[in-house]
């Protein structure tokens, strides 16, 4: 059970990284495509991503009994 905390941290980090980078990427894409290569969408996106990840992490920490489900392919 103690390792669950570590696992959670791992998940958090992973989630953070993924979300931030994805947000950054999306922001960059947006800034590139729509907003005339301004920097603010990128940072916005990154911030959004990081915020989401942070929120997720917090939420996860607060409600530790929620299970993380995984999609398992139907093997018959």
């Amino acid at each position, binding site marked *: *059970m*103690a390792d669950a905390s570590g696992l959670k941290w791992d998940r958090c980090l992973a989630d953070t990284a993924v979300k931030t980078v994805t947000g950054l990427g999306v922001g960059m894409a947006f800034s590139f495509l729509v907003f005339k290569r301004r920097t603010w969408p990128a940072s916005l996106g990154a911030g959004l991503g990081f915020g989401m990840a942070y929120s997720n*992490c*917090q939420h996860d*920490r*607060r*409600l*530790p*009994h929620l299970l993380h489900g995984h999609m398992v392919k139907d093997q018959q």
Partner: protein
Amino acid sequence: MLRLSVRAADAAARRQLCQRGPRIILQHSRPYTEGNTGGSAAKIVAAGLVSLGGGIGGTVLYAKWDSKFRTTVEKNVPYSDLLFGLALGPATSLDSTPTNKQLELAQPPSLMLEEAKSSKIKAKKVKKAEVPSETAATTPASNIEEASAEASHIISAMGEVPSVPAPQDTQAPKEQCEECHQLSPPETALSSEEPSEPGDVLTAPEEPLKERPAEEVTARIAQQDQADQDTLAFVSDKLEDSLASSATATLQAIAAQEAALQAILQHTQKLKEAMETEVSAEQRSSHWKDLEDAVGARSRNVEEAGAALVQARASLDSLRAVVESAKDSRVAALRPMVLAAEENLHSMTVDLDRAVDKVQSVESEAKIVSQYSELVNEAKQQFQRELSSITPEIQANWKGLSGTLSVDDLNALIAHAHRRIDQLNREMAEQRVREQVHIEAALEQQKLEDQKALEKAVSLAVEHNLERARLEQERKQVELREVMEAEMRTQLRRQAAAHTDHLRDVLKVQEQELQAEAEEVLSSKMMEQETRYRQLTQEQLDNFTLDMNAAYARLKGMEEAIDSHVIAEEEARKAHQLWLSVEALGYTLRSSTLDSLTRPLEPAAQAIRESCQDEFAVALAAALPEESLQRGVYSEESLRARFNALRSLARRVALVDESHNSLYQYFLSYLQAALLFEERQEAPPAKISSQDLDPFKILSYASYSLEQGDLELAAKLVNQLRGEARRVVQDWLVEARLTLETKQVVSLLSAYANAVGLGTTQAP
């Protein structure tokens, strides 16, 4: 000192920052915004309501599914039945298994049989008491009991039936009464209700009904029969003899009479011939010779006839005498013979008389003819004399003299003839004159004779008629007698039949009565015997039972002593075994191999369970937590090691709890852990209040306790952690608890094993 101050400052800072107090938080599902303490009461209320509603709903659903649960709840909770009634409808009644009734009814039939056999007298009441309590399941027993009940009914009823007294109309047993009804001569005293015969052949005196014994009667009858037979034979012989003799005599007589008749007729004929025909001398002499012969024959025959007649009459008389004597003998069987003999006699007499009559008539005729012939002869002789006187020369046969006679002779003859004629005329006149007188005299004589003859004939005819009538009467009598005899026989037969029927009935009744008596006696005797036998057997049984009980008690005592010894030894062995198994369990608990941190205690626990069936031990063995059995428990060392790892983690998340659980808090708590220093191990004081407990102190106390080997205290202390730190050490806590539990159980078991071991070595 510095550390202390730093720690105090930090604590103060923390206090300032967090302002925490003791929290007892029930639920984990909190809203996302932090620090919402004001709604906890409402939440609690809401949570309580929700849980209550959930509980009630769950209870109702479960009660719907499980009726037993429903009844339990209804029993325990006061108004739940109303609720259940509202929600689910009335409860279905439980089916009470009437197994008890079945067991009650399935009494062993042997018991029933024994009861049926035990007392016949009480059988009825016993059965009556038990029959209503039974069902048709015990049909064989009921059949037996019915049969025994019937038997008992019959036996009890036998004494109650009044014995019907047989009609007292027999003074002596009459076994062979058919012989009484034989038609014996009327010496036997038969009942006078028989119609007396009109012919009154039975002139027996009207004796009162006096029964003679059968033997005497039969002897008498036999005697009678014998006598009858003898007389019959004798008389019949006599009759036959006399009949035969008289028949022969009569026949002889009749033959003789016939012969006489013939002779007389012949004689008469001859006489007539001799008279009427003009014959020559030789012929006349031959005629006269014949006549003489005839006369001789006639006389002879008549004599013979007379003698034969006499003889016949004598024999007839003897026959009559015999018949009379036979008539007097009164033997019924002779009657027809007698009758026949009489008839024969009569017929013979009649024939004889007839023959005699014929002979007499012929004789009278012959007499007349002879008289006539004599007269004629006389006349002829007279004429002859006259002729001779007139014509003396003609002496010879004058018939041949017609040629030689002269005229004188002829004139003399004619003159003679005329004279004769005149004479004859005169005689005739005289005769005519005297004719009347003569005729009258003759008539008178004839009348007299006729009268005599008539009388004689009449008398004879009367006699004959009388005789015939008498015979007729006799015959009629015999017939009538026979008829009457037949009738009497039928009547007697009827009476005999009635008598036999009556006797049969009486005998039957008597038989029944006697049978009833005998059966009663038999049953009473049997009951006596049975009661005695039962008594004896009961006595025997009782004695035997007593002996057996005594022996059994002693045996039991001995057995118990042995058993107690055995038990004691067994107990000792079990205690030993228990102790060994508990030791094994303890060892398992303590040891842990490299490859597995835990070892399942199942085998050891199994060993304990098997080794001793003691309830306490078994309960204790059952009290071992499942996890420890299956998976095993961690030893103290492993727990200790783990704790050390966990300690740093707990330190790191010390500030995080349900209300403060943002990532910022995480960061802060990390910071605190990094900056705060505490004693690695600190001895916990005797009294601890929750105010002065913070995670770091708790952890140090726990460490110290663990180092000292006091897992319990460590667990208690660790239990005081709150928040995230607690969650972090939760599993360690669980493991510690498990271990503690197991250790407790094991210690209990070992204590118990020791106690038992101690106990068994001492005298119980």
